[in-house]
C-alpha cells in the first residue's frame, strides 16, 4: 500500500490544458475522489498516475518512488475503466488471471487469488462465462475483480458506476466503500457525480478546467466551500446565490438582496465587516430554507417573502421554486407544507449556514 503525490503536474493536449499545476498528496489507504464536470481534467489526472498519459511538467510519486518514467505495468496499480475494458475473447477467469499470468505468478497461486477475489465479489459462478454473457452489474464486478487479484498498491477507478442503472449504482456504491475498508488500499476514484463523491470519499478533490479548486473531507467541503464553484457543485439541489450588498446599520450587518434584507449572525460580523457597503454574493443552501409553517428549532431565522412558482413533491420533502423579485431560488421544505403555485409565503432562512462570496474573485469570505 502506498501514498500518492502529484507535484505541480501539468498536462496539455495541443492548446488545451487538461491538468493545470496539480499538487495534491493522497495518503496511504485513503479513498480520494476526483470530482468535477466533464472536461475538468479528472480522468486525465487518473491516467497520468496510471502512466497512460505522460505529464508535460511536474512529478508524480507513488509512495516515495518517482514514477514519471516508469511504464504502467511497473507502477503497481490497477485500474477499473468506465467501459470496464474486459477482454471480450477471454472468460471471466482468464480476464482476472491475465495480469497474473503475464507476471509469471505460479498457476496454483493464480487460481487461489482469482477464486478469492471472485468470492469477495460474489461472482464465483460466472468464472467460465465470456463478458458478453454478463449483465452490466456483473461486468462491473469482474472489472473490479481483475483489479483486486493483482493486489496493487493503488486502485484507480474511472467512473466505474456510470454505466449502471440508478438502483444498482446505489448498491454498488456501498459495496465499493465496503471493499475499500476490507482491502485497506489506496483508492483514487473519478466521478462527475457529487453524490458518489460525497458518499464514498474520505476526501474529495474538486476540479474545474484542469485546476484543483479544493481538497477536503466531504463534510468540510459541504460546510466550507472555498468558492462559488465548489459551493454550487457540492450539494443537490445546488446552493442558491443572490447578488447582494452588505450594509451596516446601527452596528449590525445586513445582506440586502434588493427585494429582501436579512441579518448577518453576530459570529460572522467580524469576518464580513471589511466588506460592508460592498457588493457580495449571498449563498444559502436549499436545505437551509424552510417554509414558515415548519421551521425546525434552533434556526437563526431570517424571513424572505417569496412567491411560489413551482412545487415539486419528492415524498420525503418538497422542493419549492421561489421567486423574490424576479430572482429564482429553491427551498427544500418539510413535506407537510401546504402550498400552491402562485401563493406567497415567508421562506425562513437559517443564517447560521449562510455563505458570502466576493463577486470579483468568487472566493468565500471568511
Amino acid at each position, binding site marked *: 500500500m502506498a501514498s500518492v503525490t502529484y507535484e505541480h503536474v501539468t498536462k496539455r493536449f495541443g492548446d488545451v490544458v487538461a491538468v493545470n499545476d496539480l499538487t495534491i498528496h493522497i495518503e496511504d489507504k485513503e479513498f480520494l475522489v476526483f470530482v468535477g464536470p466533464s472536461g475538468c481534467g479528472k480522468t486525465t489526472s487518473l491516467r497520468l498516475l496510471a*502512466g497512460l498519459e505522460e505529464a508535460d511538467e511536474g512529478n508524480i510519486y507513488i509512495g516515495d518512488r518517482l514514477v514519471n518514467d516508469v511504464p504502467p505495468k511497473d507502477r503497481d496499480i490497477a485500474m477499473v475503466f468506465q467501459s470496464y475494458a474486459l477482454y471480450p475473447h477471454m472468460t471471466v477467469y482468464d480476464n482476472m488471471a491475465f495480469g497474473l499470468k503475464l507476471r509469471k505468478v505460479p498457476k496454483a497461486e493464480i487460481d487461489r487469488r482469482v477464486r478469492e477475489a471472485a468470492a469477495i465479489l460474489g461472482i464465483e459462478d460466472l468464472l467460465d462465462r465470456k463478458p458478453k454473457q454478463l449483465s452490466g452489474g456483473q461486468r462491473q464486478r469482474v472489472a473490479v475483480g481483475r483489479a483486486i487479484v493483482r493486489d496493487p498498491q493503488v486502485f484507480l477507478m474511472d467512473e466505474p458506476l456510470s454505466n449502471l442503472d440508478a438502483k444498482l449504482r446505489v448498491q454498488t456504491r456501498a459495496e465499493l466503500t465496503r471493499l475499500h475498508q476490507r482491502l485497506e488500499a489506496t483508492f483514487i476514484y473519478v466521478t462527475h457525480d457529487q453524490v458518489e463523491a460525497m458518499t464514498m470519499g474520505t476526501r474529495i478533490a474538486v476540479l474545474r478546467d484542469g485546476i484543483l479548486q479544493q481538497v477536503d473531507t466531504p463534510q468540510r467541503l459541504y460546510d466550507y466551500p472555498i468558492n462559488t464553484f465548489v459551493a454550487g457543485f457540492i450539494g443537490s439541489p445546488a446552493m442558491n446565490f443572490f447578488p447582494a450588498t452588505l450594509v451596516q446599520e446601527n452596528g449590525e450587518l445586513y445582506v440586502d438582496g434588493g427585494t429582501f434584507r436579512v441579518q448577518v449572525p453576530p459570529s460572522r460580523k467580524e469576518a464580513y465587516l471589511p466588506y460592508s457597503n460592498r457588493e457580495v454574493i449571498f449563498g444559502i443552501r436549499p436545505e437551509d430554507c424552510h417554509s414558515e409553517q415548519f421551521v425546525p428549532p434552533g434556526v437563526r431565522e431570517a424571513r424572505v417573502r417569496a412567491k411560489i412558482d413551482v412545487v415539486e413533491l419528492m415524498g420525503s420533502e418538497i422542493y419549492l421554486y421561489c421567486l423574490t423579485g424576479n430572482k429564482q431560488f429553491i427551498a427544500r421544505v418539510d413535506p407537510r407544507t401546504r402550498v400552491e403555485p402562485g401563493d406567497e409565503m415567508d421562506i425562513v432562512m437559517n443564517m447560521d449556514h449562510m455563505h458570502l462570496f466576493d463577486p470579483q474573485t468568487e472566493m468565500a469570505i471568511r
Partner: protein
Amino acid sequence: MYRGKYSVIIPFLAPPLILYAVFVLYPYAQAMYVSLTHWSGVSPTPQFVGLRNFARLVRDDYFWNALSHNLIYLAVLPASILALGFFFAFLLTQGVRGAGFYRIVYFFPQVMSVVAVGVLWSFVYHPTLGLLNGFLRLIGIQNPPVWLGNPSTALLAVGAVVIWQAVGFYTVFFIAGMESIPTTYYEAARLDGATGWHLFRHITLPLLWENVRVAAVFLAIGALDMFGIVQTMTEGGPSRATDVLGTYLYENAFKHSQFGYATAIAVTLFVLVLALSLLVMRATVRETVEY
C-alpha cells in the same frame, strides 16, 4: 402479417434465382458433364467417355507438376502475405508519422490489373534491362540470375510478385480491423503488464481472428488459382517450372483443343478449392468475439 407473403417473396426472389441458375448452376453442371467427355471444343456433340479423363489425370506427370506448384504457393503465399500484412498494419497503427501516405502507397498494387502487374514485373525481372538486375549489378553482383528464365528461380520470382501485390490490400484490411478495437483493451492490458508482443498476441490477434480467417480463405483460393499472373509473366515456363493448374488447363483447352480433359482439370480444381475452403474455415473456427 404472413398471409400472402409468398406473393411478395417470389417476385423478389425469382430474378436473382433465375440469373443464378442460368449463369452459375447451369455452367457448373455443364462443366461436370463436359469433364466426362472427349470434346475438341468445336464439334457440336461431345463424346461421352465416362471417368476416362480423370483416369488420365492421375497418370499425367504434367498435372502433378502443376498441382505441386499450386501447393507450394499454397504453403508459402497466404502465410507470407498474412504475416507481412499484419506486420505493416501493426506498425502503421502505432502512430507512425505519415501513416496515411504509406497506407495509400501500399495499396497501389491492388488497384492495378493483374495483367499490368505481370507485364510490369516482367520488365523489372528482365535479365539485362530490368530494374532488379540493374540494381544488383550496381551493388557489385556480376552475374545476377535470369529470374524468369531459370527454372530454379522462376517460381519464386512469380510468387514474390503476388506477395507484392496482395500485401497492401491485407495491410489496409487489417488496419481497418485494428482501428475498430477499442484502445481501452490495450490500456487495460498495459496496466496488466503486457508488452508489445503480449498486446499483439493476446489482444490484437484474437480480436482480429475473424478477419484473419476470411483473409486466409481468400488467399488459399488465390494460391490455387494463380492463372492470371503466371500466364502473363511466364505462361507456365520455363520448361513448366511455373506451371499451375490454371495455366495447364488453359493450355489443354485452347492450345491442344482438349476441352473435355481441360474441364476435368477444372472440376478437380473446383473440388480442391471447395475442400480447402472448408478445411481452412474448420481449422480456424473460434467463438465469435463481440465488443
